[in-house]
Every structure is written in structure tokens, then in C-alpha cells.
């Protein structure tokens, strides 16, 4: 199995990125770190998408969908960070475990 520059190699890189992002979201408690994990998972999807587009002979549809993902990621960044700031204003914390008043 030759990974250097093959489609399988790119998909494996995307898979590793996704797994690391998932681990960041599930195992870290800081909301900002979890946010970065989400960004990492979105990037993993981008790598897979553009790798498939390249191995279809340079299809432009992959890049168009990459643009859409980019727009959604920008929206997610704005809203997510606004939520973190709003939480900090009420609780003086960015820890996900400390934002649990629905459980009490």
C-alpha cells in the first residue's frame, strides 16, 4: 500500500485529523478547546472532499463545496464565540462542566 500521494493516504490523513478533533471535543473541558476540535473535524472533511475531487481529474465541484463549508465554518465561529462570551459574562467561566444549571 503506497500512501505517498495516493487517495488512500489523503483519506487516512483526513481520518486522523477527524479522530484527533473528536478526541479534543470529548476529552477536553475548555469550551474554546472544544471549539478548536470542531474546526479540526471540519478541516478533515475538507481534506477528504478535495482529495476525492483531485482524483476525479480536478473536478471544480469539490472546490465549490469547500467554499460552502468555509462559509458555514465562518458562521459557526462567529456564533460559537459569541455563545462562549455570553456564558463567560453570566458565569465567569469557559469550562463546559461548570455550565450545567439545567441538571440541577
Amino acid at each position, binding site marked *: 500500500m503506497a500512501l505517498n500521494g495516493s487517495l488512500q493516504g489523503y483519506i487516512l490523513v483526513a481520518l486522523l485529523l477527524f479522530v484527533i478533533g473528536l478526541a479534543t471535543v470529548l476529552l477536553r*473541558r475548555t469550551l474554546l478547546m472544544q471549539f478548536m476540535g470542531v474546526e479540526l473535524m471540519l478541516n478533515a472533511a475538507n481534506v477528504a472532499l478535495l482529495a476525492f475531487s483531485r482524483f476525479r481529474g480536478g473536478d471544480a465541484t469539490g472546490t465549490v463545496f469547500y467554499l460552502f463549508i468555509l462559509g458555514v465554518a465562518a458562521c459557526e*465561529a462567529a456564533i460559537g464565540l459569541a*455563545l*462562549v462570551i455570553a456564558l463567560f459574562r453570566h458565569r465567569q*467561566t469557559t469550562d463546559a462542566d461548570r455550565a450545567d444549571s439545567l441538571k440541577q
Partner: protein
Amino acid sequence: MFLIFALITILGALAMFQQKNVIVAGLCLVLTFFGVAGLFLVLANPVAAALQIIVYSGAIMVLVLFTIMLLNSHEEEPAIKARPIQRWVGALLIAIFGAFAFRIVAGSKALAAVNDKALPVEGMNLNRVGEELFANHLLGFEIIGLLLLAAMVGAVALTKKEL
């Protein structure tokens, strides 16, 4: 080249995952985004590489770092209570997911067959992206514009003290 950029990407992501300081973690993530941009260059897609650096490293990560500095929360706060079972079950599930997905990708005959064809590749340029975008995906383009507007209004509404 692929191996260099793949290593930069993966090592940056791992460094981000285990980093205690949130600011340093953000900078590791910027490194990862540069690695991903390099991967896009190797994929004959300079448009996506430029967008990756401008939007991800330039806009989104700067926004995140500004927020970290604004809230002045550089370090992870100590846990209220240790939750060892949840953490180990989470790590175990991630490991199982990763191992199975790795086996599927590495053992896939269809993916390996794509490599052998070696299609002639036309490099991506803005003309082709624009034609494809405005000829076939105009509705998606408009919806993204609306979504960005809604996100902007929402972000202002969420962070403003009194409207």
C-alpha cells in the same frame, strides 16, 4: 511533499490536543491549517490553499485568539470533580471508531483502484471555480450569503448587553 505536509498537519493537531495552554493550542492549530493548505497545494488546488490560509488561519483563528485574550482564560480550569469513567469510555469509543475506520479505509479495494487510473489532472483556478459556482450552484451561494448575514446579526445580538 505529501509526507512532509501530512506530518506537519498531524503533529500540529496532536500538539493542540495535549496542550494545556489554550493560546499555544490555538497557535498549534494555525500550524495544522498551514499543513492542510500545503496538502491542498499538493492536490493541485492553489485556490483552496489560498482560501485555507486567508479564512482559517487569517480570520477564524485570529477571532478565536482574540476571544481567548478577551476572556483572559489561558489555562484550563481545574475540574469540579474527576469523571474517570466518562473519560475512559470516551477515549475507548474514539479508539474503536478510529481503528474500525482505519481498517475500512486501508483495506478498501475501491480506493486503491482509484490510484491506478492516474487521471490527467487539470490544476484548479478561479475561473473554473467561478463558472461552476455561478452556473450550477447559484442557490447554495445565495443561501450562504443569507446564512452569513444571519450569523452576523446573531453574534451581535448574543454579545450585546441590552438591545
